[in-house]
Structures are given as structure tokens and as C-alpha cells.
């Protein structure tokens, strides 16, 4: 059978791949003083690949299937492709001055960044175990290098090596799990796996297989107890890379988990095999992530643990869908799927925004200690205000976007409605209160405490960084007040 190429559907990825090549060649050809142009090429390429997404979205509800079902471009894939590209664009805005002013390889940075994004873009369309695995490795391998990008800094080297070893270990576990799934069901296509589970049922070996692959993903999304690489890696990596890891790369892991769970394992019999594991991962990630975050004095480490906890919140809808699915109630799957997608999009905006402010403040203080934020409201009110908005949003306080993400998460659990689901919702509710305490710690430092530094002039923020902050703030505010605008995206994703 000849593979059919739908070039329109492939266009976003093709444009991205072409940009990668151009960036790499430009880095070789351009003279040293013009190498900064690579960042411009990269951002233009990212924007260019958004164009075919828009034209594809114009044909709403078209499902374009390729490679015997292994690669699908539907509304869900498009929505997340757009999310990854916009998140990357913001990451480039964060990186421009950081990379320019530091002693880094410039062109290669954008080459690696975009390669990782290509993996994410493919992941959104992957409906086949092998494609998912290849996409996941394409996401991960460039980020190993990026994490260690401050090559003269031992902490950064440690970050990269730790991330690499954990990443390889989790890939191995996942691959073993996938091979067992293939052995039992006779296919790597998620639709075939699902059909097999529906008709033939489950067997004990499958439980092992599913468990192993979920553990693999748990490493990728840094769920407790597979999270311990995250704080060290986040702290050691260059801050724009940390922003990228905590948002895009984490989202890549979640998209993989969404694909594999909802397109492959979400049958009535199989749900029983996995919901318990996801329930435990969710509860542990929320609770331990939060408790660890409470103790942090460094803002980047705090955000690392907070992202572990936020990951726990994102796992709640998975568990809810599994609990309901195991009782034969398939309706919750739609709500849960939507909840995860919405949570990812909202989390992306507010977390990137928080990192943007961290990078801006660190330009003066050269530090991410929370104590250096004291009195920020007096010296740089705009930065303090936006940071307050991001912290409050992460804590889920209305009218900022975070509340809506938390809300849809709670909604999926309450819709499932069983004792297990509701108790997970209560755990999440208590955790969102605990979380406020450490987010408020930053707010308190900025507003309530006097400044310690000598320099009381406002912090100068370069245009690219200001753009990133403005964009993320706008998204955080608009979604918070009028979530409908955004929720359509989640809804479309589920509709397909």
C-alpha cells in the first residue's frame, strides 16, 4: 500500500522542519556578528508554520488521516500544534536577550529548540505507539543538550546529565511496556489496540504493560515519585530553557499520555487497570509537590515543585475518566479530555509569564532567590503587578485564567462522582489552598516587604521580553474573564 501524503495537513511540520534546516545553515554561513539573526529566522519560521494551521482550521472538523491511521490531523491536533508553536514563540522572545548576552552557541540553541518543537508537533498527531515513541525522543534529546547549555557551569552540566539519565531510563521502561502491548494486542496502532481491548478483553500481562508505559510517562511529566530530576534540572538549566521544559516539554508528555490513554486504553475493561495508578500519581504529585514547594527559597526551584503539583492537578481528569470508564460511563471521558487540554493551555500561558518575569528581574539581581523580590512593587510596579497576576493565576484565584483550569479539573472529578473521584477532588481542593501559601510568599515579598537593594530605579526590560510578558498577561486576563473564547478550543478538540 502506498502511503498517501496530504501535504496540506503535513504543512505545519514541513515548514517547521524547513526552518530547522535554514537555521542550521544560516548559523554556518552567517558571519559571527550576524549570528543573532538566527533567532529572527526561528521566530519567523514558527509564525510561518502557524499559517497552514489557520488554513487547516478553516476546514473545520476535517479529520485527515495518514499512514494507515498512525498520523492524524484533526481539531485536537491543530489546537495543540498551535499551542506548542505559540509557546515556542514566547520562549524565543524570552531567550533572545538571554542568549545574546551570555556566552552561548547562538544558532545551535534555536536549532535544538525547534527540533524539540517538531517532536511536539508530531506528537499531537501521533496515533501509533512507534510514532509516539519517536516523537517523544525527538522532544527529549534536544532538551538534554539545552539543559546543559551553560557549559562552563557545573550546576548546568549536572542538570543536563541528570535529565539525560532519567530520560533514557524512562524511555527504556516505556519502550518495554509498548513492546508488551504490541505482543498482547498484535498492533501498534492505538485504534487497533482499543478495538482489541473492546473485543478480546484484558489479561494480566497487559496490566504490567500499561503500568510500565505509564511509569515512563510519569517520568516525562515529572509526576511524584518520578519527579526528583525536575528541581535540579530546572534550577541548573538556563532560565528560558527551564521555562520551555516546564511548559512545552511537560505538555508534550501530557499530550502523549492523552493520546495513549484516551485513544488506546479507555475501554471499560482496561480502565480498571490504570485508573488506580493515575489516581495515586495525581494525589502524590499534588501533595508532595506542594509540600516541597513550601520549603523553597529560590523562585525557580519553587516553580519547579509547583509545576510538579500542577502536573498532579492535570492528572486528576485522567483518573476521573478512568474511574467513570471502569463503571461503563464513557461520558466523563469527553469532559476529562477537555479539562486536560484546557489546563495545559492555561498553565502554559501563566507559567511562561512567571518565567518571563523571573528572567526580567534576574537581569538586575542575577539571582532567583525570593528574597531578591522584596520591594519590587516600589521599584518596578509593572513587573510586580504582572508577577502577582501570574502567581494568583497559578493559585487559581478568579478572575485570572487559573481558576478556569482548576474548575474544569474539579468538574471532571465531580462528574465521575464516585467516592474515589470526589475524594481526589477534595485532595485537589486542599492542595490548591496549600499552594496559595507559597505563591503568596512571592506576592508578599514584592508588596509587603521593603526593598533591600541599593538600586531603586525601575528594572529595564528589553522589548522582546516585554512582548512576552504582555502576551502572556493578556492571555491570562482574557481567559480568566471570558473563558468561553478559549474553551471553544478545548471543545473543538473533544468534538473530533
Amino acid at each position, binding site marked *: 500500500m502506498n502511503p498517501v501524503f496530504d501535504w496540506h495537513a503535513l504543512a505545519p511540520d514541513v515548514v517547521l522542519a524547513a526552518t530547522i534546516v535554514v537555521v542550521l545553515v544560516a548559523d554556518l554561513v552567517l558571519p559571527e556578528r550576524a549570528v543573532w539573526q538566527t533567532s529572527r529566522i526561528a521566530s519567523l519560521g514558527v509564525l510561518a508554520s502557524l499559517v497552514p494551521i489557520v488554513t487547516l482550521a478553516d476546514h473545520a472538523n476535517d479529520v485527515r488521516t495518514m499512514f494507515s491511521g498512525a498520523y492524524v490531523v484533526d481539531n485536537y491536533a491543530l489546537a495543540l500544534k498551535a499551542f506548542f508553536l505559540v509557546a515556542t514563540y514566547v520562549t524565543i522572545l524570552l531567550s533572545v536577550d538571554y542568549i545574546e548576552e551570555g556566552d552561548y552557541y547562538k544558532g545551535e540553541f534555536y536549532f535544538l529548540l525547534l527540533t524539540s518543537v517538531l517532536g511536539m508537533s508530531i506528537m499531537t498527531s501521533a496515533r501509533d505507539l512507534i510514532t509516539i515513541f519517536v516523537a517523544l525522543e525527538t522532544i527529549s534529546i534536544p532538551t538534554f543538550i539545552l539543559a546543559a547549555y551553560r557549559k562552563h557551569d557545573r550546576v548546568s552540566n549536572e542538570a543536563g546529565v541528570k535529565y539525560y539519565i532519567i530520560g533514557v531510563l524512562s524511555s527504556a521502561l516505556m519502550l518495554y511496556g509498548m513492546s508488551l502491548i504490541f505482543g498482547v494486542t498484535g498492533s501498534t496502532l492505538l485504534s487497533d489496540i482499543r478495538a482489541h481491548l473492546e473485543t478480546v478483553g484484558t489479561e494480566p500481562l497487559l496490566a504490567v504493560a500499561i503500568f510500565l508505559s505509564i511509569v515512563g510517562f510519569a517520568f516525562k511529566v515529572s509526576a511524584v515519585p518520578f519527579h526528583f530530576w525536575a528541581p535540579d534540572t530546572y534550577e541548573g538549566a538556563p532560565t528560558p530553557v527551564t521555562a520551555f521544559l516546564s511548559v512545552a516539554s511537560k505538555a508534550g508528555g501530557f499530550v502523549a499520555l492523552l493520546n495513549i490513554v484516551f485513544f488506546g486504553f479507555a475501554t471499560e475493561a482496561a480502565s480498571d487497570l490504570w485508573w488506580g495508578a493515575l489516581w495515586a500519581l495525581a494525589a502524590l504529585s499534588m501533595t508532595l509537590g506542594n509540600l516541597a514547594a513550601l520549603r523553597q527559597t529560590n523562585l525557580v526551584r519553587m516553580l519547579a515543585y509547583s509545576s510538579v503539583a500542577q502536573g498532579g492537578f492535570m492528572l486528576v481528569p485522567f483518573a476521573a475518566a478512568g474511574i467513570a470508564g471502569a463503571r461503563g460511563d464513557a461520558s466523563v471521558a469527553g469532559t476529562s479530555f477537555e479539562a486536560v487540554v484546557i489546563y495545559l493551555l492555561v498553565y502554559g500561558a501563566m507559567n511562561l509569564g512567571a518565567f518571563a518575569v523571573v528572567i526580567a528581574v534576574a537581569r538586575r539581581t542575577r539571582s532567583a532567590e525570593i528574597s531578591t523580590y522584596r520591594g519590587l512593587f516600589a521599584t518596578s510596579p509593572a513587573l510586580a503587578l504582572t508577577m502577582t497576576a501570574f502567581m494568583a493565576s497559578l493559585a487559581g*484565584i*478568579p*478572575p485570572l485564567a487559573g481558576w478556569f483550569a482548576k474548575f474544569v479539573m474539579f468538574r471532571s472529578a465531580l462528574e465521575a462522582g464516585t467516592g474515589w473521584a470526589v475524594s481526589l477532588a477534595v485532595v485537589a*481542593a*486542599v492542595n*490548591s489552598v496549600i499552594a*496559595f*501559601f507559597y505563591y503568596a510568599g512571592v506576592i508578599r515579598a514584592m508588596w*509587603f516587604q521593603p526593598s533591600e537593594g541599593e538600586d531603586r530605579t525601575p528594572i529595564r526590560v528589553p522589548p522582546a521580553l516585554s512582548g512576552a510578558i504582555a502576551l502572556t498577561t493578556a492571555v491570562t486576563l482574557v481567559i480568566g474573564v*471570558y473563558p468561553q473564547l478559549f474553551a471553544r478550543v478545548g471543545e473543538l478538540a473533544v468534538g473530533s
Partner: protein
Amino acid sequence: MEWSEWALSLAVFIPAVGAVVTMLIPRAQEELIKWVALLTTLGALGVVVAILVDFDYDRGGELQFAVDNRWIDVINSRYHVAVDGISLPLLALSAFITVLCVIYSWNHFPEPHNPKAFLTLMLVLEVGMNGTFVAQDLILFFIFFEIVLLPMFFMIGVWGGPNREYASIKFFLFTLFGSALMLLGFLALYFKVDTPVGNSFDMVVLGEAAGAGLSNTTAQLIFAALFLGFAIKVPMFPFHTWLPDAHTEAPTVGSVLLAAILLKLGTYGFVRIALPMVPEAAEDWAPWIGLLAVIGIIYGALGCLAQRDMKRLIAFSSVAHMGFVMLGISTMTDFGINAAIFGMVAHGLITGMLFFIAGSVQHNFHTREMSRLGGLLQQAPKMGWILGFCAMASLGLPGLAGFWGEFPAILSAFQPLSTLPEETFRTYMVIAAIGTVLAAGYLLWMLAKVAFGTPKPEFEHAHVHDVNAFEWASWLPILVLIVALGVYPNLLFKVTDDAVTRTTDGIAEVLGAEQP
């Protein structure tokens, strides 16, 4: 477009527009910022007054000025706002007090000054307060209920007293804990209640459904979640511990708004949401709520007697007064709930006023230690007399507003809803009556300490301002209202009665009970 379709949205969002404007004005132009804030709050008050004029009091039980627009379709939540006789007085109170707070602040900005941030926060706060009282959709209600948290957090944390950081975070965490569980309760109502229109967040629909289709356990759990959300906000004993800290540390205006409006969000939630939406569970909980209410009355009173700080004493008196309100609500009768709403308004005016005075006393003497104060009547006779007047009003002197909140609430416990245990509530009635005696005790004690006697040596030659123009402007309207409501309570009872009767009749019908 009809004016009635815009009225409530204007009342809620004029302050939001004002907040954006003040945020855009450079910080140095303080006068301009103050004027914008004043005109904004006056604008919102003007709209509310127009609503008061246009409101059809013969149909006070029905929702008026209703707007029901699409908002967040994906979660089936709508922008539904409306007022009836229960919410109207509270909306008016909120718009009214905010204006007075802006006037009082004019020359009284606490350290670190910064009128721009202070007034912007106050305007955002007003959005949340006004919005909560008009929302008729649970999600909308939740949003407004939460919007008040951040501004108050900053007010306490930035402009508060020495222990402000602790007090502000305590305030926030307590309320957030309650509201997080409350949100779960809302979601459970959405998914589990059988309504004619399927799953709904609409408060009218859910109120009419009255918990149909809920199993007993589910109803109990939902009520428990709602109870925690509202009881922490009220605050009821034993969830009150955040209140004295928050009040003591908050700047004067923060205390006034906290006492006058924010606490009412909790009691309003009981009347509007918890009781009508899960009446059967409410019936089971009512005796316990009544018990906590009378414990609050006695505990608050005893707590007052142990205070040395004037503001802290007023804060504890709030716990006691809100106990009377909750006792009225727990009877589930129209008489009790009418009394409760009167109590909310009266407490808002009187305690708000007491906090104003405490603020001015501190401004003059730089202390609120009652053992160091004394002789206010000699040094600032007008302020001393106003303090005496408010203490009388607070202890429930007939002829002033406080009486009509307290006395009927006690009386209502004599005859609760027919399915509630009568003896238990009569016991509560006796305890609550003892509470009024204690209230007289602590308020007169405070008055004696602060106003009577001669000034202490350290303040003998202190330069003390008596009530100034800004204080008169912000206090006089409250004093007039305290007298007006005291002399002619029907001013308020007539507004609330239809709506309350409608609510309680609905509850009684579901429970198969009879109103006394």
C-alpha cells in the same frame, strides 16, 4: 436596550472601569485619583439609588432587573444577574459604604500612603461585593465571592499594622479553604440535582428544585461543603479565629469594609444558596448551626471582655453579632430570616461606624490600648458622643437599628420551623438573651474606658482633633440611617419580607413543615 437590563451590570462594573482608570493615572496625581475614585463610587451608588427607586416593592419576592446572557457555554454557566428583596438592601449597603470609605480615606491614607493602589484595590473590592449580591448563577457568584479576596489581602498586608503579614495570609487561607470546598459543593449541585432543565448552575432553577433527586448522604455532603464555605466567611465559631487578627491589623477602611460587607457574603450565602438548595440537609444541620451561633454569641462576648485593644474588642463583638444573625437563619422561619437580614444591615452600619471611630481614635492617640485611653468626651466631645451613640446602637437599644436585628432574632428562636426541635431552640433563645446582657457589659465597659474619665497624663496635652469635615461627611449618613432604621424598621422589613417569605415557604413546603 432597556435601562433595567443595564442597571445591575452598571452597578457592578462602573467600579471596574474606575479601577482601570485610576491604574492608568500616574501615581503623583493624587488629587485626580481621589476624585476619579469618588466619582466612580458615587456613580455606582447613583445607579443603585435609581434601582431602589425603580424597584417594584409590591413584587419584592420576585427577581427584578434580571439579565440572563450567555457567558461560558462550555460549562453551561450564564451571566445571570438580578435582585430581589433579599439582595437589594445588601447591594445598597455595599455601594453606600464604599462611597463613605473613599471620603473617609481622603486625608487618612495609612502608611505607606500610595492612594493610587489603595483606591484601585477598593474599587476592585466593590466589584466583587456588588457582584456577589446580584449574581444568580453559582459560577458567577463564586467568581465575585473570590474577587474580594485579593484586594482585601493587599489592603491588610500593605497598609496594615505590625502583624499584617500573618493576619493577611491567615485571612486568605481560611477563606480560600472554605471557598474551594464550596466550589466542589456547587459542582455536586450541578451534577446531582434533578431540575426541569437538566444540569444547571442557575440559582433560581436550583432553588426551585430544592435538592430534588439527591440521596441523603449526597445532600449532607453538599451542605457540609457549602457550610464550610459560608461559615468561615461569616465567621461562625469555631472558624472565627482569622477575624480578630484581620480586623486588628487591617487599616481602618479595610476593617470597615470587612465588617460591613465581607462578612455578609457568608450569611447571604446561607440564605440564598445553602438553605433553599439543600433544605433537607439544612434541616438536619439547623440545630447545630443554632448551637454554634449561640456559642459564638457567648464566646464573642467573653472574648470582648478579655481585650485591651479597642479594635480587637469590636472584632470580637462582630463574632457575637453575627451569632445573632446565624441564630435567626437557623430557625428557617420567615421571622428569623427577616431578622437576620436586618441584623446584617444593622451590623454593617453600626460596626462599620465603630471601626471608623476606632480608626480616628488611633489617628489621634496613635494607640488603641484602652488602658491608655480615656476622657475622649473631654478632648473630643463630638467623637465621644458618637462613640457612645454607636455603643448604644450596638448593644441593641430600642429605637436604634441594632435592636431590630437582635431582638427579633432572639424571639424567632422561640418558635422555629415546626419540624425543628422546639425545646433546643428555646434554650438557645435564653442563652442568646444572656448574650445581650453581656453585650451591654462589654460595650459600656469600652465606652467607659475610652470616653469617660479624664485623659491619661501622657495624652493630657496631646493635640486632639475632634470630628473633622471628612469624618462628618462619611459618618453622618450612617448615623442618620441607624436612627431611621431604628425608628421605622419597616423601611427594611417591607423590602425583605416578600422575598424571605417566598424562600421560607419554599423550604417549608419541601420539608412538609409549617411556619409558626
